[in-house]
């Protein structure tokens, strides 16, 4: 990897830590989302901000309300790519591209970005941006 061991970016095993944390978060997130998205509150905090298709929602409660009120019963996500980067303030930037299928609608592509922060030894999501893919299948 072209990553300089600047002390800020420790490695564990063969995968850098931000990738480990990022990918396990992603897996957890989409599992929760697909099975019971009302449980997603646990990964957000009161200072979190969700930007869903351009609309902003602040705070855990508002976010969970928005996600729970989305107009579909069944949802399935499939990740086609994910990418993780460490930020200067020791947070993790995760970018996800994938496809989703809601109820009986056609498959659509989506892009999502998460910003993860370590608060009291737990990684929570402080920012979340979601967009449907307009220009590609995802």
């Amino acid at each position, binding site marked *: 990897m072209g990553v300089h061991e600047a002390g800020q970016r420790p490695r564990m095993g063969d995968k850098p830590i931000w990738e480990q944390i990022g990918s396990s978060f992603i897996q957890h997130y989409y599992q929760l989302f697909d099975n019971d998205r009302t449980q997603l509150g646990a990964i957000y905090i009161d200072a979190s901000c969700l930007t869903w298709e351009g609309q902003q929602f602040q705070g855990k409660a508002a976010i969970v309300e928005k996600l729970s009120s989305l*107009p*579909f019963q069944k949802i399935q996500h499939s990740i086609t790519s994910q990418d993780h980067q*460490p930020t200067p303030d020791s947070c993790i930037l995760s970018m996800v591209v994938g496809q989703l299928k809601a109820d009986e609608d056609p498959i659509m592509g989506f892009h999502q970005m998460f910003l993860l922060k370590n608060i009291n030894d737990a990684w929570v999501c402080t920012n979340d941006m979601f967009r449907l893919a307009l220009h590609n299948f995802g």
Partner: protein
Amino acid sequence: MYSTAKNFRTYRTEEYKGGGNTSRGRVNYKSYFHENCGEENVYYKNNGYKSRLSQFQEDDGNTAMSDIQKDLHPRHNLSTTDDNNRKVARDNKDLIHITEWRDGNHQMRNMNKNEPGCKDRTFPMTKNKGPMPKYRTPSKREIEENGQNNIYGNWFKITIPYGRKYTKTWLLNSIQSKCSVHFTPVDFHYVRSQAHFFVKNSTTAFALKNVNYKIHDENNHQVRLFVKESAAPSSEQNKLKPEEIEQLKLAMKKRFDVSQKSLNLQSFRFDQDLMSHDIDMILNRRNCMSATLTVIEENFPELLSLNLCSNKLYQLDGLADIIPKAPQIKILNLSNNELKSLRQLDKIREMKLEELWLQGNPLYNNFSNYSTYMSAILDYFPKLLCLDGKDVTHSMDVETGASEILKPSKKNHGVSEMLKNLVLQFLEQYYSIYDCGDRSRLLDAYHDEACFSLTIPCNPKELVPLSLYKYSKSNRNMKNCKDHVLLTQLLKHTKRDVVDFLRVLPKTQHDLSSFMVDICILTEKMLCFSVNGRFKEVEATCPVILRAFTRIFIVIPASNSRLCIVNDTLTVSNACPKEIQSDVSIPARAPSSIPVPTISQEQQAMVQAFSTQSGMKFNWSLKCLEQNDWNYAVAGQNFTLLKAEGKIPKEAFQQIS
């Protein structure tokens, strides 16, 4: 002539001297009310008693009370042949004096603050429209005394819960606009999250009651408003007497410097002249501040500089009234007071200050360093030139420009217009270099420790599409990540590496009109935005290929008011053929092709907004606006019409909201 404190002392001694009645310690109250017994009837004259009780009602945290209370001694039960029974108990910090009206006997009872129901006690004043018993007609003298500040007259207190959210001007203007009667608010102030003010007569109060459901703020929340009877506001109740005001005026004139148009009220309480006349100018008290401001209004309306240093000020509600009275004030000295939070400045933020002194206030400790302190103050007074004697340098403005913008606006949680423009400007510049110029110029845009990574998503069914393979030329790591998803990923660190890598990527032409930008503020110093859009690959020997990309930038403000990239992630994939067909092709910069006008930044923003509001995809919104000559309102109307008629195809809309 006497300060309230002195009054009580006088009263106390008088009580035991006072004549009339029988048993030890009992005083004929009647004599106090009706005769000029001993000392003047200073008690009622200055409404000391009432003011004490009403101040508890006010709940405005006025701590002057405790000074007075300490002087009180226990009183025995006082009974008179009249109906007045009053019992004034030993003063004790935990006891609240209230007057209970019982069976025609007006007894003052001491209630322990912690007693249940204590807080629920509403003072009889509110029920009986005045502190005077209705069982006894007030004497002629009393009516004269109270005159204009008719304590018996109807004062009403208007409460706006959550009023703290709104500025005084907005709130009062909104209320006035919905109120059928013109009103003059008295003693406007904030207590915790509420806003309060008083009005004088019942017609006004009634009219205000009707405003309750009529006001909506900018987020469309209802602004509630409650009206209840109350005693006169403290500034009215304790209004200074004309003689006192005269003394005040003289004292202030001595402190006014005509050439500088400045008024020095430093340590005003200890002014020799005022003290010798027994006038306590405690500026925290609404009545004192109000009198001072009236003198200023009448005598020094051209005031430029005001010094309120060392006056133990802990709130600025009273000072806020100065704005219409002395509109030219540019210099304000509030140093060495007791201001605990910048929220106090909120009350005077309409002052157009150029110079401000705040040092020596507890609020200073809320800041970790001088520059956060300064930028917080600048938030309130953007035209400030000098803070605590130090110049607010304009070159800093440039820096604070970018970092100021990053602070989430108080008014809306969302992203301000300035911020959006900043980001759009950044993207324009970035992509103009990326597309046409030498990409090494991008070095300036990146932070030394910047990170960049490129990802190419691909379906498990197909391998990395050949056409995209050129992106992975320099790829070192082909990872099998989890299941069957194959992805190509590279992470570049340090700006040198990043830019070197960017330079080998194929030449591009980004379609700015296709950009969908989402912005979120991470911290005061960090901004994150994502861009979804399209670009064309325009390598010389290859046919033009349309790609779709998602790019996420994390930026921080840099020293030359620019944005500096610390994280950059790029995902490239093939553009969806459907979109290509319905594409309104507007190349950003295409020297070889037929020049087609690009849409401007404002137009882009308009399309974006239209798209969000209508639910239509970007291209469709663009078409709609174009067809309506970029008249947003007309476009909106036409859209609504067509939608109602079912004439807009389903594919125009974004499916998941």
